[in-house]
C-alpha cells in the first residue's frame, strides 16, 4: 500500500513538473500544444514574453486579451501575414508593427494558436489545421 502511495505521489509530482501538458486532453491536443509551445518560444516570446504579458504599451499581452477572444481568424491571419497600424487590446492602444512569418505552415500556425489559446487565462481547446487553412484563405489584405 505504501509503495502504491509513493508511486502516486511520484506520478503527481512528475505531472506537475511538466507545465506544457494539459490534463484530460487528447493526444492530438497534447502534440499541438507542445509543438506550439516550442514555436511560440522561437517566434513570439521575444516580444510577447514567455509569460504572455507583453511589454509595456509596445507589445500587447496575450495572457488577458479581449482582442484574442473575439478575433480568432484575425489572430490566425496576423501570425502569418503580420499586422500594422493601431490595435486596441483591453482598452489600450498599441501601434508597433508586427512582422508576419510567411514561412510557417498551416499546421504550425494551428499549433501556435492551440498553445496561445490554451495558455495563461485561455482555455479554448484545440484549433485544428483544417480550421486554420480555411481562415487563412479568407485573410483580408494587410491582416
Amino acid at each position, binding site marked *: 500500500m505504501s509503495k502504491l502511495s509513493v508511486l502516486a505521489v511520484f506520478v503527481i509530482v512528475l505531472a506537475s513538473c511538466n507545465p506544457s501538458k494539459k490534463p484530460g486532453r487528447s493526444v492530438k491536443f497534447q502534440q499541438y500544444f507542445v509543438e506550439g509551445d516550442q514555436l511560440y518560444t522561437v517566434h513570439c516570446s*521575444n516580444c510577447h514574453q514567455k509569460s504572455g504579458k507583453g511589454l509595456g504599451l509596445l507589445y500587447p499581452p496575450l495572457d488577458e486579451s479581449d482582442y484574442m477572444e473575439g478575433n480568432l481568424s484575425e489572430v490566425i491571419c496576423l501570425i502569418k501575414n503580420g499586422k500594422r497600424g493601431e490595435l486596441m487590446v483591453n482598452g489600450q492602444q498599441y501601434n508597433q508593427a508586427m512582422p508576419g512569418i510567411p514561412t510557417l505552415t498551416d499546421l504550425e500556425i494551428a499549433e501556435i494558436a492551440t498553445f496561445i489559446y490554451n495558455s495563461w487565462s485561455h482555455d479554448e481547446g484545440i484549433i485544428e489545421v483544417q480550421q486554420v487553412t480555411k481562415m487563412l484563405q479568407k485573410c483580408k489584405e494587410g491582416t
Partner: protein
Amino acid sequence: MRKIIVFVAVVGLISSCTKTEKPLPIFGQREVVNGDTVYHKIANFQFVDQDSAIITNDTFKGQIYVSDFFFTSCRTICPIMKTQMLRVYEATADIPDVKLLSHSIDPEYDTVALLHDFANRLGVSSDRWHFVTGVKDSIYKIAQTSYFATAMEDKSEPDGFIHSGAFLLVDKEQRLRGKYDGTKEEDVNRLLVDIKRLRKEYE
C-alpha cells in the same frame, strides 16, 4: 611540520574571506604618460534623445551609465534586451547617479518622434533613460571603437543589421568597466551586482 601547514591553510582561508573585493576591470588599451596611467575612454559624442535634448559625454558627468545598441523595429534580440534593460531601470530607480543610454543603430528610421513614442510606451522617463539617434556612422563607430560592441548594417540579416546584445557599464571617468549579455537574465543580474560594486569605488 603538519601543524604549520594547517596553520598556514587556516590563515590563508581567513585572509581570503576578509579580503576586499577586487575592483572591476578597466577595459581597453592603456598607456603611461609622465608616470600616470591613461586608460581607454568613451570618445566624444553628440546625439539627440527622445526629448530632442542634445546628449553628450557631459550628460553623464559624475554618473555611472549602462549603454546598449538596438533599434525599435527589431524583432530578434532587442525586445529581450529592452525587457532586461527595463529590469536595470527599475532596479536602479532609487540610485541618483546611474543612468541608461540606448543608441539606435537604425537612426534614419528611429527618429526623435519615434523614440519618444517608444520610450513612452515602455513607460520610462528621459531623466534616467536616454534613447538616442544621430549620424549613423558616428553611432557605428562609437559602438565599435569606444564600447567594443558590434553594430553594422547587413542586408542579408533578417532585420538588416548585425549587432550584439551587449550591455556596457561605464564609470564616472567614462571608462568601460563591464560587458554583459543583455539577452541573458543571469548576466544582467551580474550587471546589477557590478553597478553596486562600482558605486562603492566612489564612496
